[in-house]
């Protein structure tokens, strides 16, 4: 175990995978100087400009090149800088990366990782703050991953790089500095598709991911003070999501709150709520609650931004209301 930040954990994951496999390389804007958040700092020095590639501001070409490079036998890691800018590369991700294997009848896979930092990051406003994970869960062919801790950012990124599917890998910008214990060694792999029970409890299940996991844990601590034992599930991978762990928890607690930073309407919480409604109806003792951002653009002024964020108090209130 070593203590490191979420940012350092991601960097360590990429560096280890690049050391282990010469076909792994990274491309994105400003990577030669460490990337916009510093999550690539030092990698160009170790691996050279051929494998830590400084791209022009051409998001479509970055993603499209990665598709071609994957088809031609390498394993590119794409940096999109902000998930908002990845919208300039949606054709390349959705029509090309996600489809090539299927429409060519399995003649090739497309092993690429698209790193797309998401989320509100103080006063970044409407075009630098979005959480669009649910869009990608809708696309057959894609895997969608959202780590919440340093340990998972290392283990999941390593697994994503080894995965033969195109993976949309969404780190949360507000978590870069979060410190935590990270298992050392090359083989710390967190399996894709497996949730983590972040806290066990028997009264209510809170399913969440990315930065909202931390708000949910805070909420669980305050619920505990009023004698309510919340179980917090960090989904970690949104597609494929760990239905087994979620259903088992709901059968145990009979209550479900899904909380995420993205807009509630058509958010991935809707998929979870619907699935639990179909599969665990007999075990539910209360209606399912979804918490997300209102369907509004994300504002600049700190107090305006804050009213849009799902916080611990909102999660605790929603959970407590199911029990009363």
């Amino acid at each position, binding site marked *: 175990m070593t203590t490191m930040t979420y940012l350092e954990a991601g960097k360590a994951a990429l560096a280890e995978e690049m050391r282990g496999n010469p076909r792994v390389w990274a491309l994105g804007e400003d990577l030669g100087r460490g990337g916009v958040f510093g999550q690539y700092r030092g990698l160009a020095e170790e691996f050279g400009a051929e494998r830590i590639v400084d791209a*022009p501001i051409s998001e479509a070409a970055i993603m*499209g090149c990665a598709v*071609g*490079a994957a088809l031609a036998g390498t394993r590119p890691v794409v940096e999109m800088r902000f998930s908002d800018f990845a919208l300039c590369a949606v054709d390349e991700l959705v029509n090309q990366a996600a489809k090539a294997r299927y429409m060519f009848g399995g003649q090739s896979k497309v*092993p690429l990782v698209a790193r797309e930092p998401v989320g509100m990051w103080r006063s970044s406003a409407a075009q630098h703050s979005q959480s669009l994970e649910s869009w990608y869960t809708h696309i*057959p062919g894609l895997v969608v991953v959202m780590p919440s801790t340093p340990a998972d950012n290392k283990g999941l990124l390593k*697994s994503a790089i*080894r995965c*033969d599917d195109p993976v949309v890998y969404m780190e949360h910008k507000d978590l870069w500095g979060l410190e935590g214990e990270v298992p050392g060694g090359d083989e710390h792999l967190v*399996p894709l598709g497996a949730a983590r029970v972040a806290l066990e409890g028997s009264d209510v299940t809170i399913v969440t991911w990315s930065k909202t996991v931390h708000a949910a844990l805070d909420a669980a601590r305050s619920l505990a003070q009023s004698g309510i034992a919340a179980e917090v599930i960090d989904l970690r991978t949104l597609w494929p999501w760990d239905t087994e762990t979620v259903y088992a928890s709901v059968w145990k607690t009979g209550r479900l709150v899904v909380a995420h930073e993205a807009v509630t309407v058509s958010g991935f919480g809707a998929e979870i709520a619907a699935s639990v409604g179909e599969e665990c109806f007999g075990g539910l003792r209360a209606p399912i609650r979804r918490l997300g951002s209102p369907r509004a653009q994300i504002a600049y002024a700190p107090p305006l931004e804050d009213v849009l964020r799902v916080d611990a108090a909102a999660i605790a209130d929603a959970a407590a209301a199911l029990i009363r």
Partner: protein
Amino acid sequence: MRRPNIDTERLTRHFRDMCRVRAFEEAALKALAEGLVPGPLHPSIGQEACASGVCANLECDDLLLSTHRGHGHTLAKGADPEAMMRELLGRAGGCCGGKGGSMHIADFGVGMLGANGVVGANIEIAAGAAHAVKLLGDGRIVTCIFGDGAVNRGPFLEGLNWARIFDLPVLFVCEDNTFAATTRTAAVTAGPGPAARAESLGISPVGVDGNDVLAVDEAVRDLVQAIRAGGGPRFLHVKTYRLTGHTATDAAPYRTTEEVDAQWALDPIARCGAELEAAGITAETLDAIRTAAANEMDAALEAAKAAPWPDLSLAFTDVQDIGAPVPAGPGPLAGIEHVRASTPPIAPGGTA
């Protein structure tokens, strides 16, 4: 037209390759007329010299990216016409398992990494394939054929810029058939055109009469040589004309029959045949080549017609490794559920 010292063997090979492309598409159109092709067809009749002239200069393991109008490129790269015809008819044994059809025709076994249903998208993919090839240092080169309509999409700028700044081994071929769907491309393209745009990005363009297969062949030969020598990207503007409608069902009322008739007089296959005859190849020899091509493609069509539909389970294969749909219940269509938590963790190492 008579050129001194032509290589009749090579020109005969072009004649045969172009006849095969023409015969393949004529057979496909026949099948379409019979209601056997469920999706759209974009014929390349009149443009065969580009396919033949380009691919004659590529090795089997060189990579090729093509467009929705890609039958000719795919055949010329060496794909099996029967597997292609099965694909067009959506039958078992199609080169893409019946999951792609004409617009996504591909044969990775001969380096043909796919036609593409999104205009211009192949330009960036080709640049990326070239980036990989350079990284791997394995000596392959990449060729990307796209239409004149693609130069008005962003990927043209982004992809050519990328290839230039990273000095990638890629040949860009703009197969300019005068039209983008039902629009004359010149009417919607600012400035002097595709070649000037390439030049502005530091890729010096070469232009060629796209109905003269030898001219295409020679131009590509030189460009490919330069690329193999490490010269970075090259650009070829192939000027030609689409003799059919945009799709097989487009009657093309936006142009006159006089215009089209005048273009038929420049048919690259007829021109190639005339040049071969002038060089002493007999009309019988050329006829035999034409007949052999027609027979080959008719046989491919008959085999495709006789083939069954793909197994229904194929609708659910090749989706993705993890989180793919798994048929639940008795039949493949009884109900679909996604893979649950039993999804196996990713085995360390990946596949490549």
